[in-house]
C-alpha cells in the first residue's frame, strides 16, 4: 500500500492500525459510502461495511472503498448491522473495533483518539461525544433532540454522558465480545449504553468533531423519529 500523507500524523503505529477494524453500517448510502469507506481504508486497512439490505447500489459502491463488505439479505436495522459487523471483525481477529457512520459525519482523524486510550489499556470502551468536541453546523432542533436524548439516558440508564447517541464508538476485543445488540433498529444506541454499563468495563468519552451536512442531516433522526426510538427502547427493556 502506498504511504499516505496522513500516515505521518497518526499517533497510532502501523501495527496497531492493522488491528483496528472499522465497522460501518450502511443503508441506501451509495452516494457516500465509497468515499467514506475509502477515506478510512487509507489509514486503517480493515474496514467492514455492512450493507443492511439497501435497495440502491450500496453493496457495489462499498466494494470499491472497503476491504470487507457484508450484505444483509433483508433490511434488519442499524443495530443489527453493527452487530453483524462486530461479529465478523471478531472472527477476523480484530483487537480494536470502531463503529463509524456511513454518511460522512465522522472524521477519520478522530479514530486515532478513540483507539489510543484503549491501545494504552486506559479503558476498554470509548464513546465519541460531539458536545465535548467541535460540532460544525448543528441545527438547533437537532441539538434539542440530542440533549433530550441525553437526559433520557441519564434518567433511564443512570449513566452520566454528554452525548449518548453518537455512532462513533470504539471497543477493545474483550469489550466487543461482550456486546450483543438485540434491538435491531435505532434504539440500539441506548441499548449499547446499557451494555457498556453492564460489562463493568471502564469507558471514557472522547471529543469528536461532527460535520453536519445536508446529506448527513437528511440521514439523521428527526424529533419524531427520536420519539419512536424511545418507545422501541422501552418496549425492548420491558420485554427482554
Amino acid at each position, binding site marked *: 500500500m502506498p504511504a499516505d500523507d496522513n500516515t505521518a500524523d497518526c499517533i497510532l503505529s502501523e501495527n496497531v492500525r492493522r488491528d483496528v477494524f472499522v465497522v460501518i453500517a450502511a443503508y441506501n448510502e451509495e452516494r457516500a459510502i465509497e468515499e467514506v469507506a475509502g477515506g478510512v481504508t487509507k489509514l486503517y486497512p480493515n474496514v467492514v461495511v455492512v450493507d443492511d439490505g439497501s435497495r440502491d447500489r450500496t453493496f457495489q459502491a462499498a466494494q470499491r472503498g472497503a476491504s470487507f463488505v457484508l450484505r444483509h439479505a433483508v433490511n*434488519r436495522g442499524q443495530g443489527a448491522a453493527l452487530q453483524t459487523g462486530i461479529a465478523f471483525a471478531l472472527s477476523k481477529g480484530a483487537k480494536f473495533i470502531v463503529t463509524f457512520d456511513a454518511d460522512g459525519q465522522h472524521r477519520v482523524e478522530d479514530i486515532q483518539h478513540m483507539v489510543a486510550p484503549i491501545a494504552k489499556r486506559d479503558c476498554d470502551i470509548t464513546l465519541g461525544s460531539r458536545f465535548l468536541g467541535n460540532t460544525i453546523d448543528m441545527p438547533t432542533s437537532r441539538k434539542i433532540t440530542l440533549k433530550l436524548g441525553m437526559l433520557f439516558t441519564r434518567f433511564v440508564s443512570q449513566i452520566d454522558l454528554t452525548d449518548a447517541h453518537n455512532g462513533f464508538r470504539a471497543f477493545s476485543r474483550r469489550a466487543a465480545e461482550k456486546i450483543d445488540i438485540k434491538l435491531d433498529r435505532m434504539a440500539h444506541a441506548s441499548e449499547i449504553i446499557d451494555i457498556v454499563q453492564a460489562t463493568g468495563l471502564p469507558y471514557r468519552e472522547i471529543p469528536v468533531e461532527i460535520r453536519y451536512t445536508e446529506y448527513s442531516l437528511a440521514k439523521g433522526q428527526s424529533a419524531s423519529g427520536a420519539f419512536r426510538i424511545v418507545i422501541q427502547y422501552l418496549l425492548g427493556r420491558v420485554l427482554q
Partner: protein
Amino acid sequence: MIQLTTLIAEIAPLSTPDPAHQTSQHATLFQIILVAGAAFLLIATIVAVIKGWATRREGLLWAVVCVAAGVTVSNPGIIGKLAKGLGIGRGADLLLYIAVVVMLIGFLMVYTRLRQIRREMTLLVRELAIRDAVTSSQTDTPDGRHAT
C-alpha cells in the same frame, strides 16, 4: 374484530332473559347447530391431541373453550346468572369483558412471537452475511496475518 362482533351478535340474544325466546324447553335450530359444532370441535381436538398434531396444553385449552361454548349455548340463562353473581349487569357485558381480555392476551402472545421471529430472522441474516462476506482484492489481504 369480526370475531368479536359476531360473537356478541350470536350470544347476546341468547343470554338476555327474553321470555319470548325461553318459553319452551325445546332446543332451537340455532342451538342444535351450535352445540353440534362445539361437539365436532371437541372431538377434532381430542383426535388432534391423540394424533400428536397439537400439544396437550393446546388441546386442553380448546376443549375448555368447546365445552364452555356448548354449555352456554344450551343454557342461555347461565351467562346472565354468572354475570349477576359477579356484579356485572348483563350477560352480554360479561362476554364483552371476557372477549376483550382474551383478545389482549392473544395480541400479547402474537407480539411476543413476532419479536421472537424477528430475532431469529436477524440471526439468520447475520449468519448468511458473515458466510458470504466479500473480501475486496484491491487492498492487501489482512486475512493471512490473523489466520486461525
